[in-house]
């Protein structure tokens, strides 16, 4: 047998072994989505908890009982946690817009991460190998772990078991019925609450087991939750949300693609050297993008029949109000005068707030005015930052560097946006997230250009901007200008046309508008604006790391918009100010600031879905009504 062929076969086996665990986690998410229509961001956290619990059990009771008992205990513990989460949080948001649901479950990610940090500490924990499966056997002249063979068998066995469950049991019948038509199932007298809790328990159990089985292959770490959730989203989207067999096939496809990339290693294609082992993330997202272009509902998915809740109905009237010029002028004067009244530290914080205000306002344009669920806005922020930093390092000067950042972000938004506006709802949110992960993985892994995980240091503005106050004024000018541009667009015919496409796509078409083109336009504009924010950010910090385009950064922007209030002009800006200040204060006062932040987000989503500005506006109109009635 030739060497290349044996490598190929071995990588195939490797891929299949990885697919098992991925399938278990993905199918759990998919089942939960099918019935409850919730995309559970915290599903990756359940997986991570599974790994940690299995570690604790396996190290406490050694031997076969400890290991296999650990797998079972991990599944059960995580299922119990899932039930609690369903009871306490998700029950209250089943009818909420999907963006709010994603945000709420992301809050759970933050909380669970800090719980794990508290219980197991920050160090990676290497678990024991599976008793009885510690050896490798010789396959095609190369060693292959017997445990991986076991995983392959178990993956197929789990698929068979789940298929039996779905096809032969009453529970499975109810699951399939609810996945097809939730309202009809309800009308037929099925206890929905019980069914939702049960499917959540099952899905969480699978995530826990999937995690526990992974313990001999990789150490338990706090980064596992977001790493796996990105993979799982990709698998579920490729397979089709709610499809059991889709999840299985897609898990295999994705795992094989990754395994082959690693197997290829560094290869020269057309005279250019590619480090394929570093392209795994990019490769899987490219597969996903391709699938979505040809099969917008995934390979085995059906169109999702949402009980659609429009964004307009979630945050006030959906009608932004034109600001009064006097108020605007007073606000500007106050902002310009700010440095004379505060210390240096606050001037830096104010600069951060200016940057994030633009970041949030540009996202507000996408999710508020256009009503599109973007979950990866940090891609454009990050590209703006990297574009500017790389240009500055190349020595092209300050202003051209800023422009380079904006242009890079704009170019990405134009390309990514073309794909994104072709999908709707949950699929679009996941695709935007996927594109953001592509950007993140490129900057993270392309050491030669982006500095990899170390990022780029020494990105300084010219001398005259070294003064904190001067830089603050510049940030205020650029970011404030950007925010005003976002507001401006909202009231122009273009902004109104975009709102028209949001309110009623069919009607917009009937009066000669092209909703997709409008959405693409606003997506691109918002990307450029986020790029400007990122570019200013790079110079204000002097160094950047891949974090600028990470999932948490995207979620930060969403939280800012929701905190302030979707569909209010001032909302994203107020949200950015409160959020940035809150995060800064929390991060300085407690190690567990993530959990506190998560709790705040949950409170917000559950109690004040209209956000700060939206709630104030509601209160004011309520007070006016009362006065006029009296």
């Amino acid at each position: 047998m030739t060497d290349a062929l044996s490598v190929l076969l071995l990588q195939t086996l490797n891929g299949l072994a990885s697919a098992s665990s991925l399938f278990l986690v993905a199918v759990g998410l998919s089942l939960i989505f099918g019935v409850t229509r919730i995309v559970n961001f915290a599903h990756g956290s359940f997986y991570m908890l599974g790994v940690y619990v299995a570690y604790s059990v396996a190290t406490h009771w050694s031997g076969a009982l400890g290991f296999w008992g650990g797998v079972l205990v991990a599944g059960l513990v995580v299922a119990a946690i899932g039930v609690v989460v369903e009871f306490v949080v998700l029950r209250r948001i089943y009818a909420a817009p999907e963006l709010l649901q994603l945000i709420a479950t992301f809050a759970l990610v933050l909380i669970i991460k800090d719980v794990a940090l508290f219980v197991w500490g920050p160090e990676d924990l290497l678990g024991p190998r599976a008793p009885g499966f510690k050896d490798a056997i010789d396959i095609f002249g190369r060693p292959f772990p017997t445990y991986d063979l076991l995983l392959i068998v178990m993956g197929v066995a789990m698929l068979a078991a789940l298929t039996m469950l779905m096809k032969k049991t009453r529970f499975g019948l109810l699951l399939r019925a609810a996945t097809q038509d939730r309202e009809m199932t309800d009308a037929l007298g099925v206890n929905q609450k019980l069914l939702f809790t049960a499917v959540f328990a099952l899905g969480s159990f699978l995530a826990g087991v999937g995690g526990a089985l992974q313990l001999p292959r990789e150490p338990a770490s706090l980064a596992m939750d977001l790493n796996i959730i990105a993979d799982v989203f990709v698998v579920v989207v490729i397979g089709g949300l709610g499809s059991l067999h889709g999840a299985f096939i897609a898990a295999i496809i994705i795992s094989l693609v990754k395994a082959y990339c690693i197997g290829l290693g560094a290869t020269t294609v057309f005279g250019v050297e590619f480090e394929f082992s570093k392209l795994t993330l990019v490769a899987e997202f490219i597969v996903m993008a391709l699938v979505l272009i040809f099969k917008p509902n995934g390979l085995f998915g059906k169109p999702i029949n949402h009980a659609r809740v429009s964004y307009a109905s979630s945050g006030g009237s959906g009608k932004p109000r034109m600001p009064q010029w006097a108020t605007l002028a007073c606000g500007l004067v106050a902002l310009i005068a700010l440095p004379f009244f505060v210390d240096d530290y606050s001037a830096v914080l104010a600069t951060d707030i200016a940057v994030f205000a633009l970041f949030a306002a540009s996202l507000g344009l996408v999710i508020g005015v256009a009503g599109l669920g973007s979950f990866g806005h940090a891609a454009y922020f990050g590209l703006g930052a990297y574009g500017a930093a790389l240009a500055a390092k190349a020595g092209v000067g300050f202003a051209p560097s800023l422009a380079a950042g904006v242009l890079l972000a704009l170019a990405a938004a134009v390309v990514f946006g073309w794909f994104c506006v072709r999908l709707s709802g949950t699929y679009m949110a996941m695709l935007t997230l996927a594109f953001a992960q592509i950007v993140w993985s490129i900057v993270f892994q392309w050491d030669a250009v982006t500095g990899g995980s170390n990022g780029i240091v020494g990105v300084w503005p010219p001398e005259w901007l070294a003064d904190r106050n001067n830089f603050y004024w510049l940030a205020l000018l650029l970011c404030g200008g950007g925010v005003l541009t976002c507001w401006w667009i909202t009231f122009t015919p273009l902004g109104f046309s975009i709102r028209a496409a949001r309110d009623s796509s069919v009607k917009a078409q009937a009066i000669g508008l092209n909703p997709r083109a409008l959405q693409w336009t606003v997506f691109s504009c918002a990307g450029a604006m986020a790029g400007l924010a990122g570019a200013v950010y790079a110079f204000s910090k002097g160094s950047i790391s891949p974090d600028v385009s990470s999932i948490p950064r995207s979620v930060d922007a969403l939280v800012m918009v929701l905190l302030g209030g979707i569909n209010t002009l001032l909302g994203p800006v107020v949200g950015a100010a409160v959020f940035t200040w809150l995060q800064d204060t929390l991060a300085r006062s407690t190690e567990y600031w993530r959990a506190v932040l998560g709790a705040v987000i949950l409170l917000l989503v559950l109690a004040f879905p209209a956000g700060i500005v939206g709630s104030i506006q509601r209160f004011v109109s309520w007070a006016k009504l009362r006065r006029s009635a009296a």
Partner: protein
Amino acid sequence: MTIALEVTGLKKSFGGVGAVKGVDFSVSAGEVVALIGPNGAGKTTCFNLINGQIAPDAGSVKLYGNDITGHSPERLFRAGVARTFQITATFSSMTVRENVQMALSSHARASHGLFTWATANFVATADALLTSVGLADQACRPCAELAYGDLKRLELAMALCNAPRLLLMDEPTAGMGPAEREALMRLAVDVCRSRGVALLFTEHDMDVVFSFADRILVMNRGRMIATGTPSEVRSNEEVRAVYLGNLEISGG
């Protein structure tokens, strides 16, 4: 009279089941034509083939001699085809006037402007249109607050924004009370006659059909089984057979 809409050999099937099996008809300028038939007759499919919602398998649709077969709704709007929806579709976050302004600015190809305020454009034209449908006093109300009958009239006002040559109304009076139906159809017919607009509508209410249509097209099982004036259609044996059992057709 000039032929505004000419449909020839229109065919569409879904998964091998023929929904529209070769349909020919025409509508003249200023003429009011009703398309009726029992449930499943293919009239909705036929309607959607004309308004650009779906593309036909065969056949052609011509507007004043120009081929518009399979054109997208956007292109049809530019060509002078206007439509209203069975379930009213309006921009719920905007006021009544703003809704009309949107349609007017689209017709003037000013929808992508960045250097004017949207609410400042076409105010006078919008108000004139709103007056013609009797909504002038509600111009500043958010259209989410409007009564259903008023939403229908708003849709009519928006449909007139592209100076249409053909107006397609899908079950215009669905969900309205008898008095309101009468008033809305009277308004639509008057507006179309006075502007020389060809009006084609589908309708389940036979009173409306027989009191307002100049001509009636009757479909059954994907075919046109009768066309003619209300009295001709009323006396047609095949039509009577099709509608047997719910013979409101003799009323009106």
